[in-house]
C-alpha cells in the first residue's frame, strides 16, 4: 500500500490533522469563554470573503482568498459589535444576524460569479474537498526526500502547516494572558492586560484557522473542529494545560480515524463508494465527545456556573 498511500492518502490525512489541530488550539479558549458560537459565525462569514478573494485574484489556491476570508472575519466581528451596540441586543442575536446574512450573501455571490471553470463550487465550500488534495508526483515514501516530488505537493499542505504552527506559537506565547483573561477578565485588566485586544486577537486567530481549514473540511463542518476536541478534552482533566494537550490528541485522532473510515470503511462494509472525509472526521470528533461525555473522568461539573 506504500506508494498508493503516499500518493492518495498521506497528504489529505496530514492536511486533515493540521486543520483539526489548528482549530482545536484556539477552540479551547473559545469554548471556555462560552464563545463557541463565534467559531460558528466565523466559519460562515468566511464564505463571502473567500469568494471575493477568488473573484479579485482569479485563482483558487491563493493567499488572496485567505486574505479575503480574514478580512470578512474582521468585518463580521466589527459588524456584530456594531449591531450589538446600535440595536442594544444580546451578542448571540447580533452574531446570528451577522453570520447568516453574510453567509447568504456569500452563497449568492458564489452562485452568480463565474466559478464553473475552477473547483470552487457551493459543495466544495460547504463540505470541503479533502480527497482531491492528492500528491500526484509521489512515487512512494522515498518521495518525501525528493525535492522534485516535494515541489509538486498540493499548496494547501504548506499553507495549513504554517497556520497550525502560527496557532501553536500564539497559544504558547500568549498562554498566560489568554488563560488569565479567560478565567477572570477583571483581574486581568487590573494586571494591565489589554483584555479587549486579547479577545480580538483570539477571534482573529480562530478566523485564520477557520479559513485555512476551509480546504480540508469546508466552511460548515469546521465548527466541529473548534468545539468537539476541546469540549471532549475538558472532560478528561481539570487542568487547562492538560486539556489543550488532550484536545490536540483528540483532533489528530478524529482526523486520522475519520479519513481512514471515510475512505475504506464503506468498502469494508461492502459498499461501492467512499463517503465524504470531512463529514466522517466531524462525525468521529462528535463520537469522541459523546464517549467522553459518557465515560470521561471529569464529566461532572464540579462547581456551579458563575453567573447567577
Amino acid at each position, binding site marked *: 500500500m506504500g506508494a498508493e498511500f503516499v500518493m492518495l492518502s498521506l497528504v489529505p490525512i496530514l492536511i486533515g490533522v493540521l486543520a483539526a489541530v489548528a482549530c482545536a488550539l484556539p477552540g479551547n479558549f473559545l469554548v471556555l469563554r462560552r464563545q463557541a458560537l463565534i467559531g460558528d459565525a466565523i466559519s460562515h462569514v468566511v464564505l463571502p470573503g473567500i469568494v471575493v478573494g477568488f473573484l479579485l485574484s482569479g485563482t483558487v489556491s491563493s493567499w488572496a482568498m485567505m486574505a479575503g476570508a480574514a478580512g470578512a472575519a474582521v468585518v463580521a466581528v466589527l459588524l456584530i459589535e456594531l449591531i450589538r451596540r446600535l440595536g442594544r441586543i444580546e451578542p448571540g442575536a447580533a452574531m446570528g444576524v451577522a453570520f447568516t446574512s453574510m453567509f447568504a450573501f456569500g452563497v449568492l455571490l458564489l452562485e452568480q460569479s463565474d466559478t464553473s471553470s475552477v473547483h470552487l463550487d457551493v459543495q466544495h465550500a460547504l463540505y470541503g474537498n479533502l480527497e482531491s488534495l492528492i500528491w500526484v508526483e509521489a512515487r512512494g515514501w522515498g518521495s518525501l526526500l525528493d525535492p522534485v516530488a516535494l515541489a509538486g505537493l498540493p499548496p494547501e499542505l504548506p499553507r495549513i502547516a504554517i497556520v497550525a504552527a502560527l496557532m501553536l506559537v500564539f497559544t504558547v*506565547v500568549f498562554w498566560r494572558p489568554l488563560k488569565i483573561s479567560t478565567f477572570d477578565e477583571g483581574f486581568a485588566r487590573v494586571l494591565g492586560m489589554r483584555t479587549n485586544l486579547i479577545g480580538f486577537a483570539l477571534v482573529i486567530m480562530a478566523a485564520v484557522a477557520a479559513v485555512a481549514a476551509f480546504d480540508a473540511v469546508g466552511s460548515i463542518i469546521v465548527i466541529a473542529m473548534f468545539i468537539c476536541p476541546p469540549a471532549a478534552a475538558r472532560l478528561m482533566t481539570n487542568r487547562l494545560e492538560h486539556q489543550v494537550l488532550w484536545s490536540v490528541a483528540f483532533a489528530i485522532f478524529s482526523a486520522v480515524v475519520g479519513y481512514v473510515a471515510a475512505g475504506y470503511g464503506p468498502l469494508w462494509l461492502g459498499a461501492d463508494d467512499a463517503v465524504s472525509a470531512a463529514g466522517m472526521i466531524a462525525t468521529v470528533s462528535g463520537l469522541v465527545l459523546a464517549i467522553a461525555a459518557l465515560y470521561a473522568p471529569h464529566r461532572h461539573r464540579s462547581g456551579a*456556573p458563575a453567573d447567577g
Partner: protein
Amino acid sequence: MSLRMPFGRGEEVAAAPLAELSDKPLAVRGLTVSYGQKPAVFSLDMTIEDGSMTAIIGPNGAGKSTTLKAVLGIVPRLSGVVTVYGRPLAKSRRRIAYVPQRASVDWDFPTRVIDVVLMGLARELGLLRRVNAGHRQRAFDCLDRVGMRDFADRQIGQLSGGQQQRVFLARALAQGADLYLLDEPFAGVDAATERAIIDVLKTLKAEGRTVVAVHHDLSTVRDYFDHVMMINVHKVAEGPVAEAFTEEHLQSAYGGRLAANLMDQLQLGGH
C-alpha cells in the same frame, strides 16, 4: 470630610485638588460611570488615607462595585480622574491588588488552586518566564496565610464558597501590593472564612498597607473598618467611622429603608 446629599444640590465642601493628594493611596475626583442612560455613579470624590481600612457601603445598586471597577479601569468611566499614590493608574499597577466578587468567575474553569494564586505573579512573570520553585514557594506562603495550603492541588470548583474566597485573597496577597481593593469579600462565606479574611486584612493594615472593601453587612462596619465611604450613586459621607457612620448619613444613603431596631443595634454616634 465632605458631604453631599443624594441627588440634591446640598451643601458642598469642595474637595482638595488632586495636586495636594500626591501621597494618598487612592484619590478620585468627579468619577461618573453610566450603564446606558442612567448614571450608576455620579460625580464621586473619594480620598483613601494611607494605612486605613475603608468600607464602601450603600444600598443595592448604589454603585459600590461599579466605583471599584471604574477606579481599576475594568469598566469605562465617563469622566473623572483617578490617582494611585499620586500617579495615574497605568503607572501604579504593581502597587494595587484586587479581589473581585467571587461570583464574577466560572469556578468550573479547569485550573488548580495553586495556579490561581500564581496568577497574582503574572506581572512579574511576563509572557514567557517559567514558574520556578521560588515563585511556587511564594504562592504556597500566600495560601498558608489564608489557611488553604492543603488545598493547593485541588481543582477550584471542588472548594466551598468560603474557600474560593480565600483563594482569591491569596492571589491578591501574591501581588505583593500596597493598596488592596476587595469587592464584597465577606459575601456568602462561612464564619471561619470571615474570621480568616478579617485577620489577614488587619495584618495588612498592621504592615502599613491600605485596604478598601465594598461591604454589605452594616453590623460589622465598626468592628472591621476604621474609615467608611457611604454612597448612593452620589457620595453621601466619607471619613472615620466615628464621624461618618451616623444614623443621619445612613438614612440619607439608604433612603429611610433601614429599620429603627437595626439603627439601635448599630450603636450609632453623631446624634
